[in-house]
């Protein structure tokens, strides 16, 4: 177990180093960082002085080490377009993205799991067929178009819910702002989190259904039935437990893509999170924000993958025995 965790940790570190190298290459070689920082009227001597002061004339490996050391403390310098420290910009926007992702994941699980169980247990019922058709449509509709449809229906036509922004937020601690505590904040969360969570929901539903269908056919379930156990016990005690193993992996991995897909949802709903900021950075070639976003999401993904790998040991006892 410890050896396994150590190997995984080493892999994670290597991935982070590769990503840091990528971010560094981007920062150093895409466009000239000096040109971005100064105005047109700055003289060549002043530029050279700035270049020297920022250490851009040092050997590249040394520059990379400096970059990595700074990145580890999440110091990415100043944004080209906002003229503010990148870390401050991110601190302001991370709560919005994390709250949205959390509510979406919750929505996907709370709706997707029961739907999947039902469709798996009642394979031929009309409701299951309806779930499946809906999920196929859900997979085929692009995220941004789901958002547009929801806005059109609930904001423009019915005028029930807001179509943009976070509503009123409350500040907790020094930098975290939350939309959970006000009515307008909660209302503003509904449409974006459905948009973001729908794809994950259909995925979880299909997965649980497929797993359920497979598990129900196994011998130990037949045996449990033969023992005369009530259906409820067989389904939820015996069957559900074993369908959850792949679900945990997929859900964990999907958490990462929820954060990535938040970029799209945030654009549709003008949600003030870091995905929207990243997109603006891509359009304006704001390299410090791009590399910061790259490293931050890479870190989140790697951390999630690592936790999922470790969780496997606790969920699946077969992995614990007979392993070096």
């Amino acid at each position, binding site marked *: 177990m410890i050896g396994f965790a150590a190997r995984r940790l080493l892999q994670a570190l290597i991935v982070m180093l590769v990503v840091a190298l990528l971010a560094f290459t981007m920062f150093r070689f895409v466009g000239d960082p000096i040109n971005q920082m100064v105005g047109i009227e700055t003289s060549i001597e002043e530029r050279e002085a700035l270049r020297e002061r920022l250490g851009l004339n040092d050997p590249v490996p040394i520059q990379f080490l400096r970059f990595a050391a700074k990145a580890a403390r999440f110091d990415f310098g100043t944004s080209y377009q906002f003229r503010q420290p990148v870390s401050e910009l991110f601190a302001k926007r991370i709560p919005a993205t994390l709250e949205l992702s959390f509510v979406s994941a919750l929505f996907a699980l709370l709706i997707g799991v029961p739907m999947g169980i039902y469709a798996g247990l009642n394979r031929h019922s009309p409701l299951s067929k309806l779930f499946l058709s809906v999920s196929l449509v859900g997979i085929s509709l*692009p995220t941004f178009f789901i958002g547009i449809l929801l806005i059109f229906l609930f904001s423009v036509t019915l005028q029930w819910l807001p179509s943009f922004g976070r509503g009123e937020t409350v500040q907790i601690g020094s930098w975290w702002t939350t939309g959970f505590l006000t009515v307008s904040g909660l209302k503003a969360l509904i449409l974006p989190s459905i948009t973001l969570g729908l794809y994950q929901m259909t995925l979880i539903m299909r997965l649980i259904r497929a797993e359920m269908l497979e598990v129900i056919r196994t011998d130990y379930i037949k045996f449990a039935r033969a023992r005369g156990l009530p259906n409820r016990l067989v389904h939820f005690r015996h069957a559900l437990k074993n369908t959850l193993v792949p679900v945990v992996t997929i859900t964990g991995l999907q958490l990462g893509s929820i954060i990535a897909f938040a970029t799209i949802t945030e*654009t549709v709903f003008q949600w003030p999170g870091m995905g929207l900021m990243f997109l603006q950075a891509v359009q304006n070639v704001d390299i410090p924000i791009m590399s910061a976003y790259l490293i931050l999401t890479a870190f989140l993904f790697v951390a999630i993958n690592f936790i999922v790998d470790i969780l496997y040991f606790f969920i699946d006892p077969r992995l614990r025995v007979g392993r070096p």
Partner: protein
Amino acid sequence: MPYVSNEEAKSAVQDRTDAQPAPGRLARLADSDIFHSFLRSKITVVAAFVTLVLFALALLAPWVAPHNPFDLASISILDARVPPVWMEYADPRFLLGTDDQGRDLLSGIFYGMRISLIVGFCSVFAAAAIGITLGLIAGYVGGRTDALIMRIADVQLTFPAILIALLIDGIANGIFGGLDRKVYAFYILIASLALSFWVQYARTVRGSTMVEKNKEYVQAARVIGIPSVIIMARHILPNVMGPVLVIATINLALAIVTEATLSFLGVGMPPTQPSLGTLIAVGNDFLYSGEWWIAIFPGLALALLVLNVNLLGDWLRDALNPKLR
């Protein structure tokens, strides 16, 4: 079905060495398992039909579209934002209404679908080419080369494709900053999609190559001194293509969605060469003022296209999966 005819073509080539003449390709196709499974599934037949119709409309857009949305002489700003024909103030010339510049929406959708499909097909081919080449090399050569290629694939697999595509687009914007976006947008889009989707092909091809490598025909080819490159391209490649075609079909739907998403986010096709995603992005600005059709109709066209390609891909995957027979 293009898949079957390809496969048939390949086996026909192999059969040439045999003394017996092969039966006609069409006859063999009509008698194949795949064709029977195709006819058995009604929904697949419908999906294939709809897909064919959509492909034909897109391909023949210049001839079937009622208007040419790129012909500046024929469009008039006075026709801007005309609603679809069944609504009030409609104009019978424009079946689905017009956009903000007075261009016929139906024609715009045909032309947009054409661009979406071109980008989709090109990026799938490019991704498959990269993935197959790297997968063949990794599987055949093995050792360090294999480890390096597969580690890169692993790292990339931790990131969602859309993020990688966005990042590549951002870098390209930085490098080609001085040029007009119109010139390079198309190529960058294909490159970013191809570089985000190659991993799946590489992994699959590597797996099957490692199996094929140890078979007698490859060993025989090696013994008589055929160079590795030719063994890979001529002997192994045809035998690992089956799963690749399934991935490509499913990937086509994904590529179309990703392209639309990038265009919607403003980093894909420019408004001068609009794909379906660009059309939706343009229409999104008019959603609040009640002109819903400008965004909704291109969106529905996109959903219809993706849904049907997905259905075909699902069927092909199940039909070719020996476990489910």
